[in-house]
């Protein structure tokens, strides 16, 4: 139930913050048009909460701490990180939705096709690239 409620709260937060509107998101990247700083405010709000809460949670929950310590270390800044992030960013900026907002508004218009294509992209990476590159 906890994970469901976390997903629900995450989705409502995205909606309140305007992040389920692709025009608002593209407005942040549209530096040659009418720039809309809303996305930066969303990040500030979200990061501010986590800056305070994460250390408290990691101090208390052994499971959370073990999970975080298992994440890729600070030093692993390689070509995959940069190339992958660049590909993601190009796709994100082109349509104005990243994975979260896409799943939240999956019922609307061509967003379903976006989510389907996203899953195919994930599958292609796992099937053809994961073993070869790691």
């Amino acid at each position, binding site marked *: *139930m*906890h994970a469901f409620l976390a*997903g*629900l*709260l*995450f*989705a*409502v*937060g995205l909606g309140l*913050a*305007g992040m*389920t509107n692709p*025009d608002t998101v*593209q*407005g942040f*990247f549209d*530096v040659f*048009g009418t720039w*809309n700083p809303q996305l930066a*405010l969303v*990040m500030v*709000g*979200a*990061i*501010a909460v*986590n800056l305070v*809460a*994460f250390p408290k*949670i990691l101090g208390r*929950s052994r499971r*959370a701490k073990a*999970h*975080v310590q298992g994440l890729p270390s600070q030093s692993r800044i390689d070509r*995959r*990180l*940069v190339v992958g*992030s660049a*590909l*993601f*960013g*190009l796709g994100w*900026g*082109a*349509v104005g939705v*990243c*994975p*979260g907002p*896409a799943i*939240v508004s999956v*019922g609307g218009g*061509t967003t379903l*096709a*976006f989510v389907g*294509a*996203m899953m*195919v*992209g*994930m*599958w292609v*990476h796992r099937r053809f690239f994961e073993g070869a590159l790691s």
Partner: protein
Amino acid sequence: MTIVDLSLGTVLLTLVGGGCIGLAASYLLAAEGRMAGISGILAGALQPRPEGWRLRFLAGLVAGGFVLLLLSPQTVSTPLSMSLGGVVVAGLMVGFGTRMGGGCTSGHGVCGLPRFSLRSLVATLTFMAAATVSTSVVLHLL
């Protein structure tokens, strides 16, 4: 075209919305011991016999979409402006790219930055810069 509304109400609502996103991520970390990186959660859910918390989190996201549709339909009713072909290509890039780069806006941005992860900072700056390029091309050159 983009309409920029920077009234005090919008600014506060945006900050509160961002705060909810942070709370949701902290809640998932506290309750399930996991990071709310959405692309990673989805990719894991596509594996054979996925862990239950992944499916429940994703179901919560979709349910949240329905809540928004009922309470504030304008928040989830703006269609994508690209053609279907363009949307599919962009979706493939987002799915493939987030797996290669190990995360998206939520995993690297919302969760990685407050952990002072240098890796997440590099990823975030890279995808933000790339998105600026593609948005500018789509809105001004195509």
